[in-house]
């Protein structure tokens, strides 16, 4: 369970990105965090693994308080939180395998990672994960040779090989086409269910959030303005989060769509997407 208590982040410029955010994410829950650009979504998840240092407030992962951890224990705690990024953030000039194995860096000593001598168990797990996301034939490709969807799958593998309890997902679909976006979101959702992971997913696309999250939190100017089920997103609520717009079309018919037909095998996708 992740619990944020009175979390505040004020940047040096004086902007308050987060104002007393209180949030609880139970184990195994997939939560979508929506809100306009600049609402503080990225700041919030970066505060959790302290890529951004929170100004005040407390963050508990189970019983461990994260904001006061020293460097060593912070690194050990980061291993328990996998992160997936908007522009994939793969190390472009390393291979797919190296990128996936980099998820184990927190577990292996420097000399092993330097000589790429990862434990065989890690390599086995990497192969298993790549097979799970349909990329086991791409092990030796360099990350910059992959398409967007493939890169994000590698990003997912890198997060999962950490064997995390929690996934922090920052705009996973922002640079992907609509179809790939759905595939990636479904993959994240399925993997969270398989591994009983909880997840915070920052996402711009309200429709995708409704389709794949069990709970939606709306953030506006650093404050939570909505916290509830996906079908509670009425036009009024969306207006409160994003501002005045015609929202009727956005929340139309979410559950009727046939989702199962469009999952292209990755091989075929590889052939068409380069």
């Amino acid at each position, binding site marked *: 369970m992740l619990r944020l208590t009175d979390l505040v982040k004020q940047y040096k410029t004086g902007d308050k990105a987060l104002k007393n955010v209180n949030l609880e994410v139970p184990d195994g829950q997939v939560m979508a965090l929506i809100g306009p650009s600049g609402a503080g979504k990225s700041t919030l998840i970066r505060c959790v693994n302290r890529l951004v240092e929170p100004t005040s407030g407390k963050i508990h992962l189970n019983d461990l308080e994260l904001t006061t951890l020293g460097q060593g224990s912070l*690194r050990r705690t980061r291993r328990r939180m996998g992160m997936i990024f908007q522009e994939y953030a793969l190390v472009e000039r390393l291979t797919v395998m190296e990128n996936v194995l980099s998820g184990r*860096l927190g577990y292996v000593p420097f000399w092993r990672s330097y000589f790429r001598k990862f434990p065989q168990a890690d390599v086995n797990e990497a192969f298993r994960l790549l097979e799970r996301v349909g990329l086991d034939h791409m092990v030796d490709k360099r990350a910059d040779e992959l398409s967007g969807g493939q890169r994000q799958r590698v990003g997912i593998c890198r997060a999962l090989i950490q064997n995390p309890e929690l996934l922090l997902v920052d705009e996973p679909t922002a640079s992907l086409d609509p179809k790939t976006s759905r595939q990636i979101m479904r993959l994240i959702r399925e993997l969270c269910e398989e591994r009983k992971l909880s997840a915070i997913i920052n996402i711009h696309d309200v429709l995708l959030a409704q389709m794949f999250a069990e709970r939606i939190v709306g953030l506006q100017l650093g404050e939570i303005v909505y916290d509830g089920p996906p079908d509670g997103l009425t036009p009024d609520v969306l207006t409160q989060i994003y501002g005045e717009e015609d929202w009727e079309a956005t929340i139309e018919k979410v559950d009727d769509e046939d989702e199962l037909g469009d999952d292209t095998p990755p091989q075929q996708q590889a052939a068409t997407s380069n």
Partner: protein
Amino acid sequence: MPVAQTGSDRIWKRRDRRTQLTVWAVQLSCLMVFVYCWSLVSDKTIWEFVYDAPHQAGDMASRMVPPAWDYMDQLWVAIWDTINIATLGTMMAVVLAFPIAFLAARNTTPSVVFVRPIALFIIVSSRSINSLLWALMLVTIIGPGVLAGVLAIGFRSIGFCAKLLYEAIEEIDTTQVEAVTATGASGPQVLHYGIVPQILPAFAGISVFRWDINIRESTVLGLVGAGGIGLQLNASINNVAWTQVSLILLVILGTVIVSEWVSAKVRHAII
């Protein structure tokens, strides 16, 4: 004020009147400075010598041909020394420049207040002294020979390589570094996985580029006794053996062409 209303049309101009006048004033003052400097140079030139220049050049050229081809026997060793000075000097510089660049780059330096200024000072002092001057000093300190040349080239190149490399480090994509940090990797691991792969092409390009420059620089180091083909050049000039000088110039030209070709090939292969 570049947009003005004239009747029903809105007139757009690139600059308003004040800016345009400033631009003209700057251009005019540049022209005046140029004319003034030209007259200074002209006053201090002995024009009789310059009028004579075509004749002198022709005279020298006639004494340079044909190149003394049989002198080539003595040049092979010298050119080999020259290439070695350049290569070993570059290797030394690259090895030392790598850590210095990380200490100098704003995003990787352990301390902006203490370590970074020291690293920058090393870079600036290495760059501000020409390799010929380094050689002059080193010959005095450790005596004439190839070693002085290697060190001279090395010291001069540290600053060059470190400067270009630390600029490359400062321009890396930070999200890749963030991603590696988020896995719980330690500082050295973040450096090795997040940063080094991103700067490796720049690093290789800089090294080859500097090697290429160093081949040219090492050809003159012999003038001050630091080994290589410059020694022969100096001796031939002192003996007014112009046919040997022309051969040496041809050999230098050939070496530089080969080194440019090699470095272009290598850079192409890396990038």
